């Protein structure tokens, strides 16, 4: 609707459009509130709703199912004493994982690392063979959207992780 008379003035007021606009605005405010609630609950990453644990006493992985691009996050792998009797063990991660994440630090540091097939491997020494060993990968997501990762040790079926990296 172009310029027309409203009383004594000329104006391009469009009341039908404005009525729709106000309705959409109110709806938008509800969407804002829902987004805020999701954020507060941690559904958009960095919260209890997205913290996941998978595996058993032999091999357990704690990770976040929803991550944010370039925001540092942890992947914690626990290898129980029942998993391997040796004083060292080899941990495998999908090689794709390293393409999608910048690994900032690994605690403790691996004795050796390399690639084998579709996996990257890291060799760790077990400080106390009677207790579980914990390895923490501090990573920075470099990719976007869905990332599938397998985590494995020798003699155990790999654990499959699905993560979503938000932009």
């Amino acid at each position: 609707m172009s310029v027309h008379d409203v009383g004594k003035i000329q104006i391009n007021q469009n009341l039908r459009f404005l009525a729709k606009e106000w309705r959409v605005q109110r709806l938008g405010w509800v969407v804002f509130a829902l987004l805020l609630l999701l954020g507060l609950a941690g559904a958009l990453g960095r919260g209890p709703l997205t913290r996941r644990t998978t595996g058993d006493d032999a091999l357990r992985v704690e990770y976040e199912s929803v991550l944010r691009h370039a925001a540092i996050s942890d992947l914690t792998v626990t290898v129980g004493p029942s998993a391997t009797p040796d004083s060292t063990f080899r941990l495998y991660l999908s090689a794709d994982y390293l393409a999608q994440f910048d690994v900032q630090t690994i605690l403790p540091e691996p004795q050796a690392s390399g690639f084998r097939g579709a996996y990257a491997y890291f060799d760790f020494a077990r400080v106390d063979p009677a207790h579980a060993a914990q390895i923490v990968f501090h990573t920075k997501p470099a990719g976007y959207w869905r990332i599938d990762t397998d985590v494995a040790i020798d003699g155990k079926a790999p654990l499959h992780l699905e993560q979503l990296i938000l932009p």
Partner: protein
Amino acid sequence: MDTVIRALCVYVFLLVVLRISGKRTLSNMTPFDFVLVLILSETVQQAMIDDDNSMTNALLLVTTLIGLDVLLSLLKNRFPALERLIDSTPVVVMQDGELNRDRMKGERVGEDDILSAARQQEGVGRLDEIDYAVVEQTGDITIIPKR
């Protein structure tokens, strides 16, 4: 490529969010609105530059943002419906000295806002001295006093 996409996403997102928040959100800035603008710019800056502080990135960002703005202004000129969608339309909230409460509610405008605009623009201090009040596309209120 990443930079251009980031800038495009931020531009569109800000456009949608500010449009949904309403005309009055950033018009006639109070000191707090000013702080809000500073916080907004600081927040989106991180999302746009990521960890690339190079001059190339900055030039690419500026070119993208200004380019988008020029493109949008061209499109708005060509398609009036798009202009209405992006900039809204003005709305008369007071006609022939009568307040229209529904429209005032729609635009989140109170009598005090109209009186404030009347004092600043026309040196008029009473509602019964105002003939027309219009909330413009920018969110500012224009006052036409009774003659």
